């Protein structure tokens, strides 16, 4: 438990803060509407549904404000690189990687508050309608009197359903009321956004998810205008007219018989959502403008390389482009789709004069891109024939943090190896540069793949690194463990068995032997923990979710407070 707290404590602290903020804002608003005298008559008509609706509205405001911030990529990148963050601890910065998780959390909370708000208001509207309908003075006399307060230009009314209404049922009244129809208008997009953001739609039909998510514009417009109708009223003359005393004498209001009870005056509460959401909306607009401007800049594709197993490498140049190892960029190709941006990890080192990405051709977009780059044509490609690309980024991810540990473990699964290509290259360059003091002294690299072909393109890079290190006499910097989980046929198996004693591996042609099957993490972690007792070891992973979970748990299990050995888990986010 102790080491779990050590690794995850801050995450739970942020989570609790957010949860407490939600509960606190609900309770504070609830109590305000439950106790304040200004709302006495409104409460008479609406009862508990009023404070519940208002409390959940406050929760909605809070989460609608927060939900936009984690999707501002540039802002997050800026925060990560800013001076403030460089000073604060790794653990604090690590929280920035959980931006999408936080975005989802806020979204769930918005749905929760929406349900409460909506159902509370259905009761409110029904009760306004009942008050409007009540004519029997013996029982509903107060309601009737309140509902029939004279309409004046500055509005002394309390019941939004006016006595002069021609509507014959609450539903007709709903479509006439601004709060009513904006409520419907913003909830429908919210439900559409929710249903299109479920995992199956997001993974299989990304376009549907992406375009539907832009209904958030309708949502925010509706959110800001929802309160303009001033439906919930507060009394403004409680000094002259004490509602607790006067409510029993409603028949004598404004008559000389009871001068202490003049006609109560009401005014609207005013719309307040805009105060909450204005700042994040402006931030988000700035964010989108930045993305747009960056996307307009010229990018030239200098080289396209076709690798085995359906992987292509694009080498590009863009004036003024600077990057760090482990960062990613967003790419858009106008000739394929004007709106789709796809993230790719940079595989080149900052020291190289171009930047490159490796793309696995798995989907429609990636295949269309390969087609547009004439990958399958022989001979030298004409740069003039290359498609126009828009590049946004680079954006930082947690891999930059690798330099802050003494020992690191990199785990890449499948195509998830790409960020480590850049980092390994970069570590090597920095290691050779004697002016550069580097904290990092040992790198364990794990690469798990299910396909022998994907070794072909990456093994080149590893091989050249291996040779360079050996020549420089520093082969102890990097240890790698390559795991092939399946995909060997009987002939290959035979080949492997007969060549098991050779110096170089038969599949990757590297000195480190490929291992077969999946890594046993307990053994690996145990080994590393014993070799590097008392240090903080950064674990970096890029790959599928299930393995991420396993690694995360193993990290927490092998972190030991008594020996101060610490496995800090980091995950690449896309």
């Amino acid at each position: 438990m102790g080491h779990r707290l050590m690794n995850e404590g801050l995450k739970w602290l942020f989570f609790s803060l957010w949860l407490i903020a939600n509960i606190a804002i609900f309770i504070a608003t609830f109590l305000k509407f439950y106790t304040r005298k200004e709302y006495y008559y409104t409460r008479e008509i609406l009862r508990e549904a009023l404070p519940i609706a208002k409390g959940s509205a406050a929760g909605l405001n809070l989460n609608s404000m927060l939900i936009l911030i984690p999707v501002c990529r540039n802002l997050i990148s800026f925060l990560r690189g800013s001076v403030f963050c460089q000073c604060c601890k790794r653990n604090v910065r690590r929280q920035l990687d959980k931006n999408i998780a936080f975005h989802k959390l806020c979204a769930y909370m918005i749905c929760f508050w929406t349900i409460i708000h909506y159902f509370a208001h259905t009761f409110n509207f029904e009760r306004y309608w009942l008050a409007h309908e009540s004519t029997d003075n013996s029982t509903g006399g107060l309601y009737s009197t309140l509902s029939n307060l004279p309409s004046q230009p500055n509005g002394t009314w309390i019941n939004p359903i006016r006595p002069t209404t021609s509507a014959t049922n609450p539903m007709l009244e709903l479509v006439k009321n601004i709060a009513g129809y904006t409520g419907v208008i913003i909830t429908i997009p919210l439900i559409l956004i929710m249903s299109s953001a479920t995992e199956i739609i997001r993974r299989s039909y990304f376009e549907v998810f992406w375009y539907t998510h832009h209904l958030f514009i309708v949502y925010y417009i509706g959110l800001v205008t929802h309160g303009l109708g001033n439906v919930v009223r507060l009394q403004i003359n409680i000094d002259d007219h004490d509602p607790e005393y006067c409510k029993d004498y409603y028949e004598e209001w404004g008559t000389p018989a009871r001068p202490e009870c003049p006609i109560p005056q009401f005014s609207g509460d005013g719309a307040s959502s805009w105060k909450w959401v204005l700042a994040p909306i402006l931030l988000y607009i700035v964010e989108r403008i930045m993305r747009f401007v960056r996307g307009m800049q010229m990018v030239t594709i200098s080289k396209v390389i076709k690798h085995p197993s359906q992987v292509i490498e694009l080498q590009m140049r863009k004036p003024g482009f600077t990057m760090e190892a482990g960062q990613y960029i967003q790419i858009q190709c106008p000739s394929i789709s004007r709106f789709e941006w796809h993230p790719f990890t940079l595989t080149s080192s900052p020291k190289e004069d171009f930047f490159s990405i490796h793309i696995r051709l798995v989907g429609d977009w990636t295949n269309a891109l390969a087609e547009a780059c004439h990958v399958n044509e022989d001979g030298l490609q004409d740069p003039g024939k290359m498609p126009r690309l828009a590049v946004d980024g680079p954006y930082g991810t947690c891999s930059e943090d690798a330099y802050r540990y003494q020992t690191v473990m990199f785990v890449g699964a499948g195509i998830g190896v790409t960020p480590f290509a850049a980092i390994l290259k970069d570590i090597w360059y920095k290691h050779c540069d004697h002016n550069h003091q580097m904290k990092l002294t040992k790198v364990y690299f794990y690469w798990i793949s299910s396909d022998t072909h994907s070794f072909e393109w990456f093994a080149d890079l590893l091989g050249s690194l291996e040779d360079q290190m050996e020549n420089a006499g520093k082969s102890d910097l990097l240890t790698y463990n390559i795991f092939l989980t399946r995909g060997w046929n009987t002939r290959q198996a035979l080949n492997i068995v007969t060549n098991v004693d050779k110096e170089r591996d038969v599949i990757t042609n590297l000195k480190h032997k490929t291992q077969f099957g999946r890594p046993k993490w307990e053994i690996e972690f145990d080994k590393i923990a014993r070799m590097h007792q008392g240090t903080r070891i950064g674990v970096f992973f890029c790959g599928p979710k299930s393995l991420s979970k396993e690694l995360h748990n193993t990290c927490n299990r092998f972190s030991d407070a008594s020996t101060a050995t610490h496995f800090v888990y980091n995950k690449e986010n896309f």
Partner: protein
Amino acid sequence: MARIEWAMWANEQAVVSGVCLLMGSIIGVAGAFKNWEFSAFAIIVSVFVLVLEWPRGKRQKGKTLERKFQIHLAKLLNMMVPVSSNYYARFIIHIILSIPCCFLLPTIMGGMSLMMAAVIYLVGTIQIAIVFLIIKQAAIKGEEWQPVGLEKKVGEQVVTDVSRPTRPPPRSPRPAERHIQDNAV
């Protein structure tokens, strides 16, 4: 560009609206709203929609993630083909069922989103029709609901008595082959 299977989204939307409608209709009855009879009707509608939409249809390409316990309902729906499998029929059913739900405050949101689900189903069927008109091939099969998981039982071989390998991989294939042959009965 691969075709978007709109029905998959419509299905998600319909399930969400079913849940939304169920909550609203229970509140409508419990709160004794004016014209609460509509919400009594909406309870039946929401349960019907949930039963109809809970089993996810088979995707045209790739694996389909099943919802929990959907296999039991899928068997039920499979008996009511073609009414349960035709997406145009679903569009009609949802539109008709959603209209009465819009007459009551607590059920209007569920009713409206069910209408949205119906519209998405319609988009899917229109897309099919357009594809059909352009290519003019009668052979093109329209998008329709197909059960997932029911076909599993056919051709499934139960392998018992596989002894654990004693050596870690890589293993020489020859003993392995022999091993497989020994076990194949």
